[in-house]
């Protein structure tokens, strides 16, 4: 509306100038006329050329001036006034048409984002003109006016320059209503303004570029729209002003490059309404790659309720850029593929970027592939990760998440602070094939050992995304139907204790309780047991760089109740080894054997020989589940 007022005012101004300029001493007369009318502080021109043979007057370098500072805020390069044939010098004929070409106007916001100098000047000018019109003159027919090749430039602090080039303007009267039609260029839409004698009556824009149009007609909301959504597209708008400003419009074929959203949005088709200072958007559809979000907004922009609903959209990793902590989660990488849903209510003061944002929502997700880095460069590959979530001002709560991992599954629940990245999680691993995952747990080495078995584990984890080292955790794990004979640790133990002799390499069972803190895993208890050989240890540790310290007790006893009784008895006659070095290259040192245990151990080994079964063939490692 204000942009158009500028143009209308220029037209009126120059028309007056032109009428006064039809004389051989035109420039002087015009300047005198401007002084007499009190317009000399608002308008100026370079020259006026009147040619009676051509029946026209040409004004060059017309300017609109800010009276408070003397700055030029708009100009028209050439204004041609067509006069009726046969006019005579010294007369003031009624022009029959007016045509302008070239020129520019600048809309400039100051740092406060409110003042539009050119608009203030125009309003001043229009008010002065209206004050001069005699009563009843409003019925005088308006001469047709056209302007071509105008530039309109919009300056706003911290905002890219908006420029409309080649703008055409035509003004005509219909039923006592002045219609101003502005066309930025071929295929770039049009704007129509209507004025009656009481002033502004209606503004309509169709197919106009969204940002300059919205900035021009509703500056306050326009700021939010321009800076918060950065729309690129076209807009249809209708503005009326009775008791308060009423704006109704529709943005269509739009895209958004909002700084708040880490991926492009669009196409969008949104109807909106501004009544006074209240914005209302009902279920606008805003697309993004893989889906769309329905957006509703209600309220003044400093107290705005926003509702976002995403139904069954395709999951892409860049969506997680909306989660503030995700960038710091270096150990988890989600891949494109899957679906998600989201229902989110926001309450925001969009005029203050520092104001707290109130969030409440929930949703669900299915991510087809997620990589998790454990203790080596080879990540764990999770598939079909599915779960629900709730989000509020405190953070993100995941009450039930599960995934496929190495022919088994992982289940979990937890919560994450979206502000600090602190998290607390409970994880459960069920029937995972360690043959597929053990390379992910060898710090700094490429494991080539043949290891198999089925892992079950529970753990509580506490940590901060982005923090160095391991999370603080406590848990237990077991391996069933295991084949761990080829691990460097077991191999080194067997080599270090020749008393063990030949071992039947049947299935093993591992029981482990552990905790982690920073860069160290503490082995609270570990038991690696096969039918006739058992290794037990307590209070060991493994660092993230692979260093290991662990004291192991080694004894050859069978499982079972009898075995456990014997285990208790033989605690006194066991072999002990100290494990140091690294996980990939452990150094095992036998500890001195008490004098009394040697003969007893020989006796026990002799008894156990009765239970040996050289004919039984160990079962092959599991290949599937």
């Amino acid at each position, binding site marked *: 509306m204000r942009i158009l007022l500028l143009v209308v005012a220029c037209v009126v101004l120059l028309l007056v100038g032109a009428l006064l300029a039809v004389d051989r001493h035109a420039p002087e007369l015009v300047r005198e006329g401007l002084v007499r009318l009190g317009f000399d502080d608002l308008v100026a021109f370079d020259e006026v050329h009147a040619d009676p043979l051509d029946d026209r007057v040409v004004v060059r370098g017309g300017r609109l001036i800010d009276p408070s500072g003397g700055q030029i805020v708009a100009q028209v390069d050439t204004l041609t006034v067509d006069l009726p044939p046969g006019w005579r010098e010294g007369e003031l004929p009624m022009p029959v048409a007016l045509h302008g070409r070239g020129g520019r106007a600048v809309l400039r916001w100051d740092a406060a984002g409110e003042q539009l100098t050119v608009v203030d000047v125009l309003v001043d000018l229009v008010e002065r003109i209206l004050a001069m019109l005699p009563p009843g003159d409003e019925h005088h027919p308006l001469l047709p006016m056209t302007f071509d090749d105008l530039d309109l430039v919009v300056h706003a602090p911290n905002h890219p320059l908006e420029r409309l080039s080649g703008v055409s303007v035509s003004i005509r009267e219909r039923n006592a209503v002045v219609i101003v039609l502005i066309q930025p260029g071929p295929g770039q839409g049009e704007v129509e303004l209507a004025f009656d004698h009481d002033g502004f009556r209606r503004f309509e824009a169709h197919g106009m570029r969204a940002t300059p149009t919205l900035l021009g007609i509703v500056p306050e909301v326009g700021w939010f729209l321009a800076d918060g959504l950065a729309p690129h597209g076209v807009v249809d708008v209708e503005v009326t002003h009775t008791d308060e400003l009423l704006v109704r419009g529709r943005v269509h074929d739009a895209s958004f490059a909002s700084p708040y959203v880490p991926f492009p949005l669009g196409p969008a088709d949104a109807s909106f309404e501004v009544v006074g200072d209240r914005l209302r958007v009902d279920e606008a559809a805003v697309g993004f790659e893989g889906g769309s979000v329905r957006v509703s907004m209600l309220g003044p922009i400093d107290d705005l309720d926003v509702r976002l609903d995403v139904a069954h959209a395709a999951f892409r990793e860049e969506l997680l850029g909306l989660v503030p902590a995700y960038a710091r989660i270096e150990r988890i990488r989600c891949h494109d593929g899957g*679906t998600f849903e989201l229902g989110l209510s926001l309450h925001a003061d969009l005029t203050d970027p520092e104001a707290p944002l109130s969030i409440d929502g929930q949703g669900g997700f299915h991510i087809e592939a997620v990589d998790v880095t454990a203790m080596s460069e080879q990540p764990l590959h999770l598939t079909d990760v*599915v779960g629900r979530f709730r989000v509020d001002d405190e953070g993100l709560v995941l009450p039930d998440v599960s995934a496929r991992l190495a022919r088994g599954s992982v289940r979990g629940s937890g919560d994450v602070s979206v502000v600090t990245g602190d998290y607390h999680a409970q994880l459960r691993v069920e*029937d995972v094939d360690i043959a597929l995952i053990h390379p992910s747990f060898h710090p700094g080495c490429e494991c080539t050992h043949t290891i198999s078995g089925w892992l079950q584990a529970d753990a509580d984890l506490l940590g901060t995304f982005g923090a160095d080292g391991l999370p603080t955790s406590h848990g237990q794990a077991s391996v069933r139907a295991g084949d761990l004979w080829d691990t460097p640790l077991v191999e080194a133990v067997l080599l270090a204790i020749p008393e063990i002799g030949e071992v039947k390499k049947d299935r093993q069972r591992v029981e482990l309780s552990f905790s982690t803190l920073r860069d160290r895993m503490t082995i609270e208890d570990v038991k690696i047991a096969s039918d006739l050989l058992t290794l037990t240890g307590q209070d060991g540790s493994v660092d993230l760089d692979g260093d290991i310290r662990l004291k192991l007790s080694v004894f050859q006893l069978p499982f079972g109740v009898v075995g456990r009784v014997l285990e208790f008895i033989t605690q006194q006659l066991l072999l002990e080894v100290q494990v140091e070095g690294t996980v990939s290259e452990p150094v095992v040192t036998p500890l001195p054997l008490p004098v009394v245990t040697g003969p007893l151990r020989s006796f026990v080994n002799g008894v156990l020989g009765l239970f040996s079964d050289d004919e039984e063939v160990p079962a092959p490692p599991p290949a599937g589940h």
Partner: protein
Amino acid sequence: MSGALPSALALTLLACAGCAAAERGFYAPVGAAESPSLVHWTEGRPDELVFEVACQGSYLNQVAGRPARTMHVQLEVLRPREGAVTLALDALRLTLQPADGGAPIDLLPSEAWWGDERLERALRIPGWSRRAFDLFFDDPDAESAPPALARLRWTWQAGGDTGYGDCQFRRIPAGGPGQPSLDPLGDAAFGYRDGFYMPIEGDLGPRALQKGVEVREHYVFHDPEGWFVGWF
């Protein structure tokens, strides 16, 4: 448990109890390629509902003190969208085609488990989740041979939507490719080899959820090596 003495003892006890080795049937989805591991049948829409079915085979076991030939089916359901899915147990039906070509036999689930939780009426999968179920279909005719074909059909409901599932398994020829090894299990408490549940010959014994400290996706319901396991 392994070792010559316990194994011999176990065999002796089984023989004394009159439990001759019962025929075990292993199955693969109709049309599936031979595999050394258990093969699952999968169907569904990855953005809506996915069913994955494994047939753990037909074996002899004791149910409420009576012998029964049981078809053990594992069903996993992934619901990657909002809205719970329900499968009523009485809308789950297993049709067995006897090996001798006799009339088909329809069975309803005798027991259904989600992990270590027994389900009485329906299988329920909340939105945005997955659930793995163990289904036992008991044929009271313990003398029957493992069926040649097993066809599982079910009806699911999600809100106002209703859908149907249907899959068919064929018996893997005894001794042929695709049949798991019948060697003694290396770790009976784990219960699986190559994805097959208790792939051994003989009666698996009384069916009851086995105690275990580990949380499992599919639990173990039999202890085929008898009461003496764990004593040595």
